[in-house]
């Protein structure tokens, strides 16, 4: 038998603040001040990416852009330097989101929140090297995404 309580609260100001201390590929630390948290989306389904962008905007996040391939993701990350990445696993042209996430971690010190229908144990184990921020299994709603991002932001802000 399980017994659990879920407490849902709506914060007075749900807009996220920047709470990440980034480390770039050279190992230097760049502590950022308050402001919009910037998010890069890596998703090859246009309808899904559109919904994510809208949810991010609604939640007060700065969406720096959407990439649908590994190449686009690495290029966008290099130019936009987002605070975090929302990463699908299966990308356009059979590109692998897990490998892209590892590359982003190695090159730019970026961490990903995986948003995927592939959230099984084997995939999570494979993605451990990318040091993921979390997993949001598909299908998810905008409130679920924003709640997850708020939790991630809060966790990172405490570190």
């Amino acid at each position, binding site marked *: 038998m*399980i017994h*659990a309580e879920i*407490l849902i609260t709506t914060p007075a100001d749900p807009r996220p603040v920047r709470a990440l201390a980034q480390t770039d590929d050279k190992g230097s630390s760049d502590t950022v001040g308050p402001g919009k948290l910037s998010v890069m989306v890596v998703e090859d389904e246009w309808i899904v990416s559109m919904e994510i962008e809208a949810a991010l905007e609604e939640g007060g996040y700065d969406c720096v852009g959407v990439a649908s391939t590994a190449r686009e993701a690495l290029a966008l990350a290099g130019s936009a330097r987002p605070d975090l990445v929302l990463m699908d696993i299966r990308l356009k042209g059979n590109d692998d989101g897990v490998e892209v996430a590892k590359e982003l971690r190695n090159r730019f010190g970026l961490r990903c929140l995986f948003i995927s229908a592939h959230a099984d144990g084997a995939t999570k184990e494979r993605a451990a090297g990318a040091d993921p921020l979390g997993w949001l299994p598909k*299908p998810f709603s905008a409130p679920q995404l924003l709640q997850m991002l708020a939790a991630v932001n809060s966790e990172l802000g405490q570190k």
Partner: protein
Amino acid sequence: MGQDLADAVLDALDEPVFLVDLNGGIAFSNRAAESLFGSARRGGTLLDLVEQPHEALIQYLRRCSGTAQTLPGAATLRDVSGELIRFRLRGARTRMEGTPYIFVRCLHSQRDQFPALAAKIRELNAEIHQRRRIQATLEESLRNNEVLLRELHHRVKNNLQMLIGLMAAAQRETSSDEARSILEEVVQRITAIGSFQRLMHESQEIRTISSAPFVQAICDATATTIGDRLRIEVRADDGELSHEVGMPLALILNELLTNAAKHAGGSIGGSVRVGLFSGDQGWELVVHDNGPGLPPDPRNRRSSGLGLVKGLCRQLGASLKAENADGARFVIRFGRQEQT
């Protein structure tokens, strides 16, 4: 033993027998040998009967010439009709009238000492081989089906995600509050279906899902989407729910939680208790909020929340009781016979 007697004994053997000199020259062949290889072979050489190359047979004869103990060997010989036959050889040095010879018996490979046993072994070997081939085919087929199933689950979840995206886009576009509210409810329902789909995928069982994680997952999914202040207490007995029951039950629970959020969620300290209990007669789902209770004449459209609950209860063969008991209390009972 006289020569005639020796010849008679050798002629009585089933297998071809040769007496050859160190170069393979045939000094004697028995009746079986002449029958198989022709009488003209007498005076010829054993090497004439063997397929090229000869070296292996020459080596074998040399080894036999060094011992009176029988040595095993093998050769493929051509019979009088030109057919090639594989023989197991048994050869040993012997002496006749002071001259050294090599005595060679040609045992037919297929004419085993225990023919029935050998045939059975061959039959079993063939069966094992066949079974291994079938097993390999089945394993390959199983792997393909697993990949296909994973792909189907993945596609279903992605398609549900796209549906949510389309509904949410329509929700943003409309200027009608009513339409926005209806679309939001639809998104919630699809999210509940998605949660059930994920549990079904993660479950190791092909026909059932575990009841306690199921209730928790639907409550979690609905709770996130509701967005109002509402405490949800969840109690669920452990057990198995069939997939046929799981999907409508996910939607029923989502509707009752949404209803609770609408009526009890607005007030301070609003809460709802969700219970799924297993009894002798079957399952009982209880959703009890602490809101103002049911209105005297609740809307009963088929597509409204309560209409949906009633319709899905009918699909499950479940009874539905809605009552006021310090808030709205819904009790849904359904038997285990539906879990097939």
